[in-house]
């Protein structure tokens, strides 16, 4: 489950930035049939968390009501340089994670 993260270019301390992430996941609705006419089981990312240097700054509970390859853009207050750590788990129990460095100018 690959992911792509986008952060603003120049981040200054105290600035509220938008964190964008796109996770590759089908977010199966549970009512789609595959090419062989078999029901594709429901499978959505249920829980998604973002930690900023270890501290939780965003959490989402989701359903198949979020489109395939979920895209999320959420705000956070830039404090110091470090790492954003994203983690999620789907209905199948599969876990995914991704990290992105964050550079904050004083």
């Amino acid at each position: 489950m690959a992911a792509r993260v986008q952060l603003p270019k120049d981040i200054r301390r105290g600035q509220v930035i938008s964190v964008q992430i796109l996770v590759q996941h089908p977010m199966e609705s549970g009512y789609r049939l595959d090419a062989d006419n078999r029901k594709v089981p429901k499978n959505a990312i249920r829980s998604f968390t973002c930690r900023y240097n270890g501290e939780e700054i965003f959490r989402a509970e989701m359903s198949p009501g979020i489109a395939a390859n979920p895209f999320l853009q959420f705000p956070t207050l830039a404090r110091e340089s470090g790492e954003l750590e994203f983690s999620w788990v789907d209905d199948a129990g599969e876990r995914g994670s991704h990290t992105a460095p964050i550079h904050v100018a004083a």
Partner: protein
Amino acid sequence: MERRRFLEAAGGALAASLAPRPLLAQAPPAFAQSADSQALVKRATRGKEARVGKVKLDLPLLADNGNSVPMKVAVESPMTAADHVKTIRLLSERNPEWEMAAFHLGPYSGRAEITSRVRLAGSQRVVALAEMSDGSYWMGTADVTVTLSACVDGTG
């Protein structure tokens, strides 16, 4: 009759503007089944009412299909330790799972604004419900017409 010539001749000069009038009470109902968004809200709040306001939910008026509809929700809040948005929920009238998503925020968020793409099982009213740090609830709604499903959205 030469249509092409007519087109050119007619030019842009026919701008007989007509000021749009506000929607009348007699306008077609948006969604018959959306009579009571509060019922949806009460399910989410376990019985508490939500006040209308502070929450702005942006969804397109029309979506050609419901598979991936751009969504933006913003809540008015200073986002301080004392006064902030704790959770924003998206509630659906028609999706098989009525709780589409819950986004948890805090003072560290700086502002309360989420953008995503949602999946809608047909035309409906979507509710955005914000739970504030003082325990109050605020809501905003948006009506989306999923044009692909128009064939079955009316009656049978």
